[in-house]
């Protein structure tokens, strides 16, 4: 399948503790469109847009609790295939930055999370996975599937933009 980019142009994350619902427009979350869908996350990039020094303790982590009623993405945020020739998916991925109740970041030690701390005043952080070593999202079960990029407790979060490149299989 073709790779896709889920991007949020500009937002200020809120430092949120694990196992707490994330507030709207402070995160990016991605979930499979069906119980049998598999994604591989290949790249995550965060770029700082703050006008003063601001440490963002960004984490890409599994969701402990899924969001309820995710809100459809609206411009300037978006999610689309990297190739214009890509056919529409039967079960479109559920990518969102807002929901009736936001997802909760995992709080368990044996559940995957990726720490992407950086200074949003001019800083950039980017992670690439090697082939076969990608972050996998499988089906819709929490703690093995839905994942979100959000700010962990601490720091004095600042404006940033980010993208997630992933590939539905």
């Amino acid at each position, binding site marked *: 399948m073709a790779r896709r980019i889920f991007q949020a142009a500009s937002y200020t994350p809120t430092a949120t503790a694990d196992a707490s619902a994330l507030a709207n427009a402070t995160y990016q979350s991605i979930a499979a469109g069906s119980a049998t869908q598999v994604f591989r996350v290949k790249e995550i990039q965060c770029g700082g847009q703050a006008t003063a020094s601001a440490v963002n303790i960004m984490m890409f982590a599994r969701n402990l609790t899924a969001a309820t009623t995710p*809100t459809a993405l609206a411009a300037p945020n978006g999610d689309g295939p990297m190739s214009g020739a890509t056919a529409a998916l039967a079960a479109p991925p559920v990518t969102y930055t807002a929901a009736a109740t936001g997802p909760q970041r995992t709080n368990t030690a044996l559940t*995957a999370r990726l720490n992407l*701390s950086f200074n949003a005043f001019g800083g950039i952080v980017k992670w690439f996975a*090697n082939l076969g070593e990608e972050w996998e999202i499988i089906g819709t079960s929490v703690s093995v599937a839905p994942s979100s990029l959000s700010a962990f407790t*601490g720091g004095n979060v600042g404006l940033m933009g980010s993208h997630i490149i992933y590939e539905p299989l």
Partner: protein
Amino acid sequence: MKQREGYLIVDHSASPGLPEDIARQAGYDPKHCGEGKTFEAATLTCAHCKIVSVKNPLRTRERVKCAKCAGRYICDLCAIDAQSPTYLHLPFEKLADITLDLAEKGVVLGSPQELLSSKIIT
């Protein structure tokens, strides 16, 4: 970048950078995360839980590789688990197979699908 390693770059070449405590908390080398610095590192992905960790090039302790997973890296937490006499070998791919198998039979683990699929347009 070696085979099976990811790549992380934290570029503060035009930024005040991170305080030492935050850099350490994230697993970065604080010396390369300050003002005007760029930190580059290899990352390792655990074959069992998919945790991604920044590789410490100064580590002398053995990094555990799972023989049952074709010698792929497993993280320290999974390595401790694997030493238990009651340990059941469960690589992430196997977990994926179980999840997908159950899904095909109509058994969905975790949150109900309705919570994820009912989008609203604003």
